[in-house]
C-alpha cells in the first residue's frame, strides 16, 4: 500500500465502539485517500456498516481517533458540529430511505435548499442534472412509492450528491435489490467513482468491489484482518480466513443478504 499522509481524506485510528455490552468495533485503523474507492467486505455482523456510521457521526465511538478532512469527528460534542460534518459526507443506505411524501425532485432539492440555503431554482437545476446522471430524468415528478427499488436507490444517490459531498458512503446499497436491478445501481456508482468521487462502500458485490476499488478491506468480528489491492485480497491473500471467504464466494456471482449492522 502506498498512502501519502497529506492525501488522506478519512483516517480512523484504533476506533473502538460498543452498543451496550456488545463490542462492535475492536480497534479499527483505516485510511482513505482523496479520490479513492475503498470497499469494505466481510461476513455479516463484522461491523462494516458501523464503520461508515462512525465516519459521518451517526454513532459515536467510545475511543479512537476519526479524522475527516482535518475534522476530528470523535471530538465533536455538539449536534451542530456533527451536522456540519454530515453536510460534507454523503451516505446512501441499504433501504434507500427516501422521504415517501415528497416527489423525486423534492427529495433531492430539500436538503440543499433547507440546509445549504441554495436558491430553489439553482437546486432544481442541479437536481435535474443529477437525475440525468442516474438515468432517471423522466421520474422527477414521481413519488418514491411509484418507483422500483433500483430506481429509488438511484434517487437516494442523487439526493446524497446534491449536497456536493467530499466523499460518499455506500452502505450495502444493493443488498435490498433484486438481481436485475442491482446492475443499474452499480452502473451509477461506477460512473461516480470514475469521475473521481471518494467513495467508501460496504458491499457484498465481490466482483464489483474487485472491479472498482483502489483498496479492499476485509473485516471480521470488529477488526480489519486484511487490506490491500483487489488483486491482493481476491487472488493472493496471505490470510487464510480471507482466502476462505473469497474462495467460498467465487463462481457464485453477487452475494446478498439482509445484513444491516
Amino acid at each position, binding site marked *: 500500500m502506498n498512502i501519502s499522509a497529506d492525501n488522506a481524506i478519512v483516517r480512523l485510528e484504533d476506533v473502538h465502539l460498543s452498543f451496550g455490552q456488545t463490542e462492535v468495533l475492536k480497534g479499527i485503523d483505516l485510511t482513505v485517500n482523496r479520490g479513492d474507492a475503498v470497499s469494505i467486505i466481510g461476513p455479516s455482523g463484522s461491523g462494516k456498516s458501523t464503520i461508515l456510521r462512525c465516519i*459521518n457521526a*451517526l454513532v459515536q465511538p467510545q475511543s479512537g481517533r476519526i479524522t475527516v478532512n482535518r475534522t476530528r469527528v470523535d471530538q465533536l460534542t455538539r*449536534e*451542530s458540529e456533527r*451536522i*456540519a460534518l*454530515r*453536510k460534507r459526507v*454523503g*451516505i446512501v*443506505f441499504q*433501504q434507500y*430511505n*427516501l*422521504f*415517501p*411524501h415528497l416527489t423525486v425532485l423534492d427529495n433531492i432539492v*430539500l*436538503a440543499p435548499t*433547507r*440546509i445549504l440555503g441554495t436558491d430553489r431554482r439553482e437546486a432544481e437545476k442541479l437536481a435535474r442534472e443529477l437525475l440525468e446522471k442516474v438515468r432517471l430524468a423522466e421520474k422527477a415528478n*414521481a*413519488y*418514491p*412509492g*411509484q*418507483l422500483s427499488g433500483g430506481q429509488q436507490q438511484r434517487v*437516494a444517490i442523487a*439526493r*446524497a450528491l446534491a*449536497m456536493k459531498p467530499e466523499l460518499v458512503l455506500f452502505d450495502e446499497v444493493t443488498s435490498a435489490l433484486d438481481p436485475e436491478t442491482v446492475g443499474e445501481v452499480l452502473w451509477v456508482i461506477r460512473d461516480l467513482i470514475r469521475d473521481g468521487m471518494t467513495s467508501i462502500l460496504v458491499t457484498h458485490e465481490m466482483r464489483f468491489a474487485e472491479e472498482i476499488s483502489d483498496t479492499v478491506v476485509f473485516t471480521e468480528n470488529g477488526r480489519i484482518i486484511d487490506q490491500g489491492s483487489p488483486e491482493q485480497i481476491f487472488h493472493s491473500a496471505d490470510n487464510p480466513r480471507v482466502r476462505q471467504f473469497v474462495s467460498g464466494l467465487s463462481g457464485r456471482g453477487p452475494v446478498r443478504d439482509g445484513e444491516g449492522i
Partner: protein
Amino acid sequence: MQDINLTDLFVSLTGRLGLNYEFLATGYEAQIWRDGFITTLYLIALLIPVSLVAGLLFAACLTSGRVWLSTPVRAFVEITRNTPTLVQLMFSFLVLNTFVSDLVGGAQNNPLSPFFWVVAVVGLHIAALHAEAIRAGIEAVPASTVEAARGVGFSQLQILQYVQVPLAFRASLPAIVNNLINLVKLTTVGNAIAVSEITYASIMVWTQRDNVVSMMIVILAFFSLINLVVARIGLWVERRLAVPGYGL
C-alpha cells in the same frame, strides 16, 4: 315586508306541525338566538386552529426526548384527558379566573372573559387529544427514514418539520378529524359559564316559550350540519395529501 311575511309563513307552517317558533317574530329573543349561532361558529372557527397549533406543540414536546419538555406536557395531557371538560372549565373560570382577578386588583380589571376560558379549556383539551394522535404518528415514522434525514445533515427540528410531521400528520389525520368533531360538540360546555353560544341562547328562549322540542330540532340539525362539513373537509384533506404509492 317580504322578510316578515316569510317568517310569519314559517311560523304558521311549523305551527301546524305542532312546533313553536313564534319567538322568531319577536326582536329580542330572535336576536339572542341568532347571536347564539354566530358565537358557536366563532368558537369553532377559533378553536380548530388553536387546538391544532397547541396539539402540534405538545406532540413536539412529547417526542423531543427532553425530559424537561416532555414531562410537564405528559402530565398536562394525562390530567386533561382523564378529567371532564366541564369540570376543567368550571375550575378554570371559578378558580383560575378569580385568581387572575385578585392579581390585577379586581374583576373589573380582568381582561379574561368567559369566552376566553372556553377557548382556552376546550382548545387545550382537544390539543391534548391531537398531541397523542400526532405523537403516535411521529413514532410510526420508520427510524431508518429519520436516520437518513440525519445522514443528509438535517437538525432534529428540521427532521420534525420536513419529515416527521408531514408523515405523522397524514397518519393521524383520521384521529384528528374525530377530535375536531368532538371539539364542535364540546363548545356547548360554554353555557355552564354563561357564554351565549347556541345551547345557552336556546335555553334562554325555551325557558320563556316552553318550546324545547322545536329548539332541540334546530340545535341537533345545526351541529349535524357543521360536523358533516368538518368530516367532509377532513376527507378532502386526506385525499389531497394522499401520496401515490404510499400506504397512508
